[in-house]
């Protein structure tokens, strides 16, 4: 079967390491971390005191004040990132009366701070103090709905929830939509999980760092890995049918050439890190499936953007999956985890990883994993640490897992030149 091809023609980032795509990329290539003390509320008495916060974020120049008041921070991130993605794709006037462009986001916790404020109003003051926008700000479909309205995108709209794997699964769903005839899909994910009740809800997951030193807070693949911190932001991208991009004369950053997802349930009596071991076979199956989908062999994969949970058992399971799926090559492929500098962005994290992979392919450079050194490594992998590494990147594998047993793998490939390539 000949599929319509889906290429990324624009992306927009909002991350702790950069309020926009250019700043994010510069900071990420420099290997700087933005993990620091939580400032959004007084977390001094909380077990979790560090996070990757998006600082100096001001959506007021991009988003109407009325909409800002009616939505939560995670939707503000999505609206700003989407605006940038569409501008980067040279698609500033979109919409109209056709159904050609859709929206697919991932979501894993919804409008946390907004929701908490309204529940607090209900319980401290009474039912009539709940405002009219709780119904449109708190629930998981808020960002997709607002994006559809803001840009008049009337194609298929959807929201995929697979915890931290969501960003990849949203991209895959967007590709599915494009293959069925839609011209383009605005896709990606953002998250704003740094609010008092949302962080409290994350505590029982058992993987958050509870210390005070930012430099120790998120050390994936390291012997003294001690968990991770929550982070804010994410990425939005325009995924577009290749001929549409060519006809518009916009270059493609990368093509989504392969994807697969698989699942293995954890054992529920183990809430500790030991529950991670069963994720290896699913992640391996997802990687194999993604390579088969892209018609590539392990030798064709030039780099891996890792899931990198920062919990020893989880990281070992990830390396085991890479070995199982890629064989000997797993120890020689450069692996990187820039998320060590921003925290786990949940559904926004894998979207940001995909955006990072696209930027890496564009510039032929792999950003390093902040905070980790080669001497720290627990496993025999070629983790890019210290400084960015220049190399030609044809195919980059992005992997992600979601709490509960989700595993996804996506291959992004360089597109030489759309005009001659199609």
């Amino acid at each position: 079967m000949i599929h319509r091809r889906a290429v990324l023609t624009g992306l927009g980032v909002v991350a702790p390491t950069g309020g926009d795509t250019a700043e994010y990329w510069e900071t990420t290539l420099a290997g700087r971390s933005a993990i620091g003390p939580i400032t959004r509320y007084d977390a001094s008495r909380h077990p979790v005191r560090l996070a990757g916060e998006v600082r100096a974020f001001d959506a007021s120049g991009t988003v109407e004040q009325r909409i800002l008041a009616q939505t939560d921070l995670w939707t503000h991130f999505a609206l700003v990132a989407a605006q940038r993605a569409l501008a980067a794709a040279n698609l500033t006037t979109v919409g109209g009366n056709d159904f050609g462009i859709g929206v697919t986001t991932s979501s894993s916790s919804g409008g946390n701070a907004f929701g908490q404020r309204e529940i607090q109003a209900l319980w401290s003051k009474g039912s009539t103090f709940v405002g009219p926008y709780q119904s449109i700000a708190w629930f998981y479909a808020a960002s997709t709905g607002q994006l559809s309205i803001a840009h008049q995108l009337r194609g298929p709209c959807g929201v995929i929830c697979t915890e931290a794997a969501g960003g990849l699964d949203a991209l895959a769903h967007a590709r599915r939509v494009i293959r069925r005839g839609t011209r383009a899909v605005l896709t990606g994910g953002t998250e704003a999980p740094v609010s008092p009740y949302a962080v409290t809800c994350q505590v029982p997951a058992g993987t958050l760092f509870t210390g005070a030193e930012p430099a120790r807070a998120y050390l994936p693949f390291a012997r003294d890995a001690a968990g991770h911190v929550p982070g804010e932001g994410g990425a939005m991208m325009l995924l577009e049918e290749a001929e549409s991009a060519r006809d518009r004369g916009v270059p493609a950053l990368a093509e989504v050439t392969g994807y697969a997802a698989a699942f293995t349930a954890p054992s529920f009596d183990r809430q500790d890190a030991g529950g991670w071991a069963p994720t290896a076979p699913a992640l391996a199956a997802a990687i194999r499936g993604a390579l088969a989908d892209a018609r590539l062999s392990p030798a064709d994969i030039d780099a891996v953007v890792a899931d990198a949970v920062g919990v020893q058992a989880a990281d070992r399971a990830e390396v085991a999956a890479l070995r199982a799926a890629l064989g000997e090559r797993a120890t020689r492929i450069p692996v990187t985890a820039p998320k060590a500098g921003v925290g786990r962005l949940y559904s926004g994290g894998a979207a940001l990883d995909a955006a990072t992979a696209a930027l890496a392919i564009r510039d032929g450079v792999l950003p390093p994993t902040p905070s980790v050194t080669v001497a720290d490594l627990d496993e025999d992998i070629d983790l890019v640490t210290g400084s960015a590494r220049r190399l030609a990147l044809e195919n980059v594998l992005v992997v992600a897992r979601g709490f509960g047993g989700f595993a996804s793998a996506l291959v992004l490939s360089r597109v030489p030149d759309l005009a001659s390539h199609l």
Partner: protein
Amino acid sequence: MTRRVAVTGIGVVAPGGIGIKDFWELLVDGRTATRQISLFDAAPFRSRIAAECDFDPVAEGLTEAEVYRLDRHIQLGIVAAREAVEDAGLAAGATDGWRTGVVMGTAVGSTTRLEDEYVVVSGAGREWVVDADNPHPYLYHALVPSTLASEVAGDNAAHGPVMTVSNGCTSGLDAVGYGFQLIEDGQADVVIAGAADAPISPITVACFDAIHATSTRNDDPAHASRPFDADRDGFVLGEGAAVLILEELQHARRRGAQVYCELGGFATFGNAYHMTGLTTEGVEMAAAITSALDQAHANPDEVDYVNAHGSSTRQNDRHETAAVKRSLGDHAYRTAMSSIKSMVGHSLGGIGSIELVACVLAMENGVIPPTANYETRDPECDLDYVPREARPARLDLVVSVGSGFGGFQSAVVLDGAGRRAR
């Protein structure tokens, strides 16, 4: 060659009917399950009525550990999935788990559990920085909406693609639609597809109070949900879950499975108009119906029955009537159209799957469920809404539509005559 998708099993937990048998009896009798809210003290609220499930999780086969771990919507979803899996004859090991996927829809996820635990850690709303020292051990399961899908997948040893879909009130149709696409695309042979919501909690009731979306016929709950009736005054909140087993047709035939019908087509579009508002024209819903019929190789005048969104709000009923006229032309006046929300209320994301199960049963039994409480004609809603009494009819082409949050409009076509072969 197109892979065709069969429905080989169904399961349901609905107000007034746990299990297929009781649910179908309720619908055929035209009884209503709407009543005074009993799940919490609703005295302070504007709308104090709902369609509740009389659901005892342990009696329905869940363990105490599952009840402790999971929000009510997941409990409902698991029970519905078990019934569907059994109905499809898919005992453990009957299929390849790596070729079995799960797609489950929910609009509000575990918000009931999240609210209950919020009250505990905040001292009933006293503290903004809530107590994070001793949260419920499964609170993270409640934060992430993906838990619905991961729990159903774990319960059924599914290892293929697994996801939660959270598209507001179209979640239940879209989840089935996405499952259909996964099988069509070859990513799975069997998909456990459905939806669940259990939103009857103070915060969600307050949300709808605030936007005056729900009925205030508090003194007459049995007659409060009145789709298409001139005297309607809003929807009645409901809860419930339903699951359909979707299966690649040859796969079903090889194992000698029962085939209820085929899933002929699915489409969804956004109106890009308003998060909760609808236009009077119904253009996007009409486009979804037309696209789904095209995929099913069916003509509009072959439609035997339209299962309406019929939420019992004035704007919905007019919008939907316009959409059906726009997509079916004059045939709209000849086809039957009814809303089971008149009997089981509006369970947000859950209802789309419950309605699809009702459609499967209607085709199987040759009976159209009625619109209960329909008494007074609204001049702007002038189609055949099957008032109050079930109607025998041969049904081999059925459309089910959904509409809601974010402006999303979806349609699913069920085909009993193998049109996709032609």
